[in-house]
């Protein structure tokens, strides 16, 4: 009997916490995926750039196209002067996030793992223990669906951002840039508005402090929500009580449109993360008129 009253979101990978894989100690499934993605990205780029030639082969051509495109975008935002220093980090962030996001869409990621057995090869992803925690531990989980990874990306970015800011403006220049008067004010007006600019500086510092959180939680939320959506759609047939074979077909058909959406979301979130990073660098390294 079909019943829509039983529908509830099925959290991806048993919850927002990335659980440790039982056989690997504290190493979580997202760390495993992060390592796989790292090895994959590095192996591909190494293969493409090992014997570079003036007339490139297909792999070298693809990597050159990607890097040239990204460099053009970065240069357009941060400017010609800062682009060579900012590009490696921004490109790394973009490529790594994109690869991690799309890796999460591969069949088996988030669905194959350890848990309460409900058949010879199946586990119950909705099974909870006495404490109310999900017991399903997927073997693989998208690295960007784990706060540890998204926060790591944001913290590394903020460290490089801080270094670039100090390198470009100096310590005093950075303080003036944050707390100093803006808009090229001179004379009495400049001193009259000084308290306002100081207050704006404090607000700016607060916003800077919260940037790692906003960057990491935005990415985590989007990717984890996408995973949850796909899981929910895959189990929708069972949840509403469709017959076995229809539920099996619906487990393939229902999530299909959302896979295409998640491909888009994966690219979009990689773009948003790296674009925001580029804008933060641009804001911090822009020389004011009076500097």
């Amino acid at each position: 009997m079909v019943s829509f009253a039983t529908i509830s979101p099925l959290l991806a990978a048993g919850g927002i916490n990335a659980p440790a894989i039982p056989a690997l100690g504290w190493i979580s499934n997202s760390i495993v995926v992060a390592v796989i993605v790292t090895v994959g990205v590095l192996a591909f780029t190494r293969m493409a750039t090992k014997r570079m030639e003036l007339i490139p082969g297909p792999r070298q051509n693809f990597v050159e196209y990607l890097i040239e495109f990204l460099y053009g975008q970065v240069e357009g935002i941060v400017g010609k002067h800062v682009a060579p220093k900012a590009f490696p980090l921004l490109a790394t962030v973009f490529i790594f996030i994109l690869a991690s996001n799309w890796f999460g869409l591969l069949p088996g990621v988030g669905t194959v793992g350890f848990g309460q057995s409900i058949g010879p090869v199946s586990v119950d992803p909705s099974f909870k223990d006495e404490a109310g925690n999900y017991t399903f531990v997927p073997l693989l989980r998208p690295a960007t669906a784990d706060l540890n990874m998204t926060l790591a990306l944001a913290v590394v970015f903020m460290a490089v951002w801080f270094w670039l800011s100090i390198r470009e403006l100096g310590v005093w220049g950075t303080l003036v840039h944050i707390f100093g008067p803006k808009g090229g004010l001179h004379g009495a007006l400049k001193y009259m508005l000084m308290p306002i600019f100081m207050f704006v500086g404090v607000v700016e510092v607060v916003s800077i402090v919260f940037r790692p959180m906003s960057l990491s939680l935005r990415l985590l939320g989007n990717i984890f929500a996408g995973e949850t959506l796909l899981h929910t759609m895959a189990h929708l047939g069972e949840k509403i009580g469709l017959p076995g074979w229809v539920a099996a077909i619906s487990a393939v058909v229902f999530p299909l449109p959302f896979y295409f959406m998640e491909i888009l979301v994966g690219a979009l979130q990689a773009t948003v993360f790296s674009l925001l990073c580029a804008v933060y660098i641009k804001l911090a390294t822009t020389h004011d008129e009076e500097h």
Partner: protein
Amino acid sequence: MEGILQTFGLDWPKFISQVIIVLLVYFILSKYAFGPVLAMLEARRSRIAEGESNLKAIEAELSRAEEKVQGMLNQANLDAERLITEARESAEAVRGQKTQEAIKEAQSIIEKAREASRLEHESAMNELRRDFGRLVIDATSKVTGKVLDDGDQKRINEETAGQVAL
């Protein structure tokens, strides 16, 4: 804040391991991918710029060469026209000279022919005189029946020659 982070699954060992992974990717990609690829793109860009500059130089050189060739062609045309004119003039001069020479030679031949004719005429006249003198002597000796001596023959010859000359 700590509570929020733990709710979302923050775990320091996992976080630090992810930071290490991100830093590894960052450094390795910077060293082995972005650096060489950007250097290659720059090398290609400078090569294209060099090619463009060479192309412009070649085009300028070609233009100069074409101008030079055109100048040489014009000069060659002028030279050819001058040579033709000179040849024509020279031919005219040679023709006039040859004509004059031919006229002179023809006149000389005519003079020679005229002289030869005159000499032949004189020789024939002398022969005629001698024959006529001999005939007169034979006729005289036959008519007179007298054997003429040398003095008579000489006198008759001179008289006959004088009359024939008249």
